């Protein structure tokens, strides 16, 4: 461990760094190919061989990204009001354009083929295989976050004074209003659709157990929570926004109500900015405001240093197989860890 610390983490032995010109706003994986979306509007593809390919996609910053339901391309939303599909071979298709608006949120589901973008006060949806928007859900204020369940049907929309729950695949279905005062700026839904959890402007989380609409409040966070990650069994919800990763237990009838959270990998003087559970193992990747990235195991609270010495971590993601971890900091340094190389 001492040796690893001296060398600045495992990335130096089993991974690599790539320096890009803009601030990465997200990293996505297609197999072992990483896509980094940047604040200068470009998407950079990084492969295992060290090759990289850049595409200029948006006129301003890429504010949001997600994987296209086809699994072969990514979707980007920018402050130029466009939603684009970008394939790794450079093929680019504009699927939506919203003049004078920012596209700040995107979610998509391979299960239902649904794509939803958060554009000002509207959640704009594309049904499976649609090349232009098919329906919209208007809410009372600007959307703070979007979340889909594992089936890609139930859609949670966070906004000022609460959230709205709809069926994203059926524009005529009823909506459920989840009211809670305050500005809700991020959200996540449990894969089974039983919980919607939002992050608040005034810090802390609010949650609703569905369909009973039972309220939950999780407070004590140092800053706003903007990153959530469910583990593979949806037993834990890992959250950012404090000097440690905070994991809420969602097992049992009442979920986290009345239970204490697990506090993992505290680092004084920093803030956890991104969290990402390994897709096949009980390991949590944690990115901090000082550029440190670690892996932590909730079971025994052991940690491994992956990277350090960078800047504020803005992006962190595993590939589906759990063989690659990618992260990026606000100075444009991308890190990639090859988990297969460890074996």
């Amino acid at each position, binding site marked *: 461990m001492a040796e690893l610390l001296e060398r600045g983490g495992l990335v130096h032995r089993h991974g690599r760094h790539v320096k890009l010109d803009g601030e990465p706003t997200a990293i996505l994986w297609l197999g072992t190919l990483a896509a980094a979306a940047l604040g200068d509007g470009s998407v950079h593809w990084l492969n295992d061989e060290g090759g990289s390919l850049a595409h200029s996609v948006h006129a301003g910053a890429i504010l949001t990204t997600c994987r296209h339901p086809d699994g072969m391309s990514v979707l980007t939303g920018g402050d130029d009001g466009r939603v684009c599909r970008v394939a790794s071979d450079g093929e680019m298709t504009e699927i939506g354009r919203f003049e004078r608006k920012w596209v700040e949120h995107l979610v998509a589901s391979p299960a239902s083929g649904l794509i939803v973008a958060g554009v000002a006060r509207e959640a704009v949806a594309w049904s499976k295989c649609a090349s232009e928007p098919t329906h919209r859900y208007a809410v009372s204020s600007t959307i703070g976050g979007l979340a889909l369940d594992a089936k890609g049907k139930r859609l949670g929309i966070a906004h000022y004074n609460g959230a709205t729950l709809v069926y994203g695949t059926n524009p005529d279905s009823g909506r459920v209003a989840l009211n809670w005062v305050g500005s809700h700026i991020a959200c996540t839904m449990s894969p089974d659709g039983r919980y919607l959890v939002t992050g608040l402007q005034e810090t802390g989380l609010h949650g609703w157990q569905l369909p009973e609409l039972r*309220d939950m409040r*999780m407070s004590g966070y140092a800053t706003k929570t903007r990153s959530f990650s469910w583990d593979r069994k949806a037993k834990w919800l890992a959250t950012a926004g404090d000097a440690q990763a905070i994991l809420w237990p969602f097992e049992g009838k009442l979920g986290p109500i009345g239970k204490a959270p697990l506090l993992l990998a505290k680092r004084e003087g920093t803030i956890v900015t991104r969290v990402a559970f390994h897709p096949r193992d009980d390991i949590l990747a944690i990115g901090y405001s000082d550029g440190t990235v670690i892996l932590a195991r909730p079971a025994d609270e052991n940690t491994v240093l992956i990277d350090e010495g960078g*800047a504020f971590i803005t992006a962190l993601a595993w590939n589906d197989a759990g063989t690659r971890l990618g992260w990026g900091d606000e100075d444009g340094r991308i890190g990639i860890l090859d988990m297969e190389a460890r074996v």
Partner: protein
Amino acid sequence: MLRPEALGENVRHDPLGKSRVWVELRQRVAENAGWTRICPLSAANREAKEVIYYIRGFMNSTPLIPVTVLIGYLGAGKTTLLNRILSENHGRKYAVIVNEFGEIGIDNELIVDADEEVFEMNNGCICCTVRGDLIRIIEGLMKRKGAFDAIIIETTGLADPAPVAQTFFVDDDVRARASLDAIVTVVDARHILARLEDSHEAEEQIAFADVILLNKTDLVDAQELERVRQRIRAINGPARLHETQNCVVPLEEVLERGAFDLDRILEIEPNFLSEDDHEHDDAITSVSLSSDAPIRPELFMPWLRNLTAAQGQDILRLKGVLAFPGEEQRYVVQGVHMLLEGDHQRDWRADEVRASRMVFIGRNLDPTALRQGFEACAVSAA
């Protein structure tokens, strides 16, 4: 501390039921000079707030992006001024947040439409009413590193300036990256007296200003202009006042003023408004205080905190430059309603008189009580 609670009812939290802890972070983050917020924070948040200042604001030395807020009624000349800022060759790039894009004739990808969404934080404290859209937009703009040097925010004539200003005190992510440089109010010399009669907003817009452009002076006669001048001065004595036609003013008088135009208050003669001849009971006035004797921080801080806690609703703006005994640096303080920020700004220059000055702008201000309170904080001559 971290405990989810099952809540039966969806009720607003009673702000007065919460324990309020006034925190002064300065002492704790002593080595990391920067603004200190002295605001009622919940005990739970206290530790936390420190951390974020630490990480984004001070540890990384990225300079804060200056923000100019442009206020004024439709037709006062804001758009003329904005167009000048965008078209003049000054070598600076500005991101402009407007409320009506159509008014500006210049196409520029750094012009962003705002929604004017005023959000009340759920602790119910009025000092925490902010502009949610500005928080989002500023965070979004910051992703484009190096694309611009400063931000200008235009607001409508009907808007209350307080939430805009408070956004820069309250939101940690915004504070860590941007700082309020100056509030600039454009006033139409022809219509302002009528506006002041029929709306609170007109008065507050003048009260909040660091810089006032008294525009369209060519459209009123000398007598009328003098009346307007006096009325503006009665509301906001400390602001810099420029009389203009077509908003023609050197842009450096408006943009990137630095330190909230604090030096201006050192030039003002104290007690310029000792006359108590208010036109209405709720008229906004300004009170200026001065002390040649150094101010004792251990008395001054609690005095100011208690004052703003009790009268924060009425105090629209406050600013101060203070000399503490035996300190080589000027301490500057500024506030909006109940929110205060203070910091050691820079060393006193050899040729500077180490006098302490405070300016309050607000309603129902009692100059005598303020003066006595301030003077009681000074090191006594004996």
